[in-house]
């Protein structure tokens, strides 16, 4: 039953796509943010494409509400979202700061903390100013996930990565929820 339905749907999509080729500019403009989000959802399983993210950000004032919608969707499909974040983290190291903060807001799961810590793997390959940003966001995510217990982990991570971090990172760390 389902394959026949999706075949029908596929035919409908192809026909509709052909019909939109010559659509007026005002329709294109109105639907543009929705189409960006549609593309985002379509490519989500392969991770986020930097060009698409750039285009969404460029249309920021209109896409921000829709991005909230995407987050709602992500909240309803936590497993798929988690897998997408894993894929994105491995292929787009510069998006790891955002991924750390998103993970902190995801539902609890056994490997959540390990995944957030693993976002620091390869930190030495980042351009000069980015390691500090990534480290502080990972530290913040750990404290959001683990509460006061996370302080010890962030401290030991700081000791491990200190040689890669600029001066001032330590004091930045102390601003987070009274971390010693």
């Amino acid at each position: 039953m389902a394959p026949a339905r999706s075949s029908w749907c596929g035919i409908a999509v192809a026909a509709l796509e052909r019909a939109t080729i010559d659509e007026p500019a005002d329709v294109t403009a109105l639907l543009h943010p929705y189409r960006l989000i549609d593309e985002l959802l379509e490519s989500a399983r392969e991770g986020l494409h930097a060009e698409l993210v750039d285009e969404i950000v460029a249309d920021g004032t209109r896409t921000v509400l829709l991005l909230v919608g995407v987050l709602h969707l992500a909240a309803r499909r936590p497993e798929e979202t988690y897998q997408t974040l894993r894929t994105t983290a491995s292929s787009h190291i510069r998006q790891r700061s955002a991924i750390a903060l998103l993970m902190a807001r995801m539902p609890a799961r056994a490997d959540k903390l390990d995944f957030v810590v693993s976002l620091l793997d390869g930190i030495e390959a980042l351009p000069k100013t980015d390691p500090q940003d990534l480290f502080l966001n990972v530290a913040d995510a750990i404290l959001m996930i683990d509460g006061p217990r996370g302080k010890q982990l962030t401290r030991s991570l700081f000791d491990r990565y200190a040689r890669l971090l600029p001066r001032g990172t330590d004091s930045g760390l102390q601003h987070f929820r009274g971390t010693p």
Partner: protein
Amino acid sequence: MLFTPESVLEARRRLMKQMLAGTITEEECFQQALQVDPFDAMTLTVLGKAHFSAGDRPAAEEKYWRAVAADPSRCEAWFGLNRCLADRGASQDLRTGVLLLAAREMLRNEESIDEFIEWLPPGRAGAELL
């Protein structure tokens, strides 16, 4: 709110009980639910349908646009929006664009095809909306 807090779930359960007990109407129930969470796509979609049935097409369209923004995977909201657009004589180009977004979502999520078929009035085929 990204993950629905317990307080909102509790408020929804309370409203649902009141509706089932007949102390508030279905529309009052969902209007109040919308005040609790203005971005709840399900509530927006239900209200869109209610406004449409009551003949208040502008209010229905406004709810459906908000519903698809709150949850772009909600096919029934996309199709409801299309019906509103058709009803007010919006351009075929706009309707086609909206239908394309709905159909692409249906293709991504086969469950939504079943949801959509359940949502259709008895005897209606999805193709009739094209």
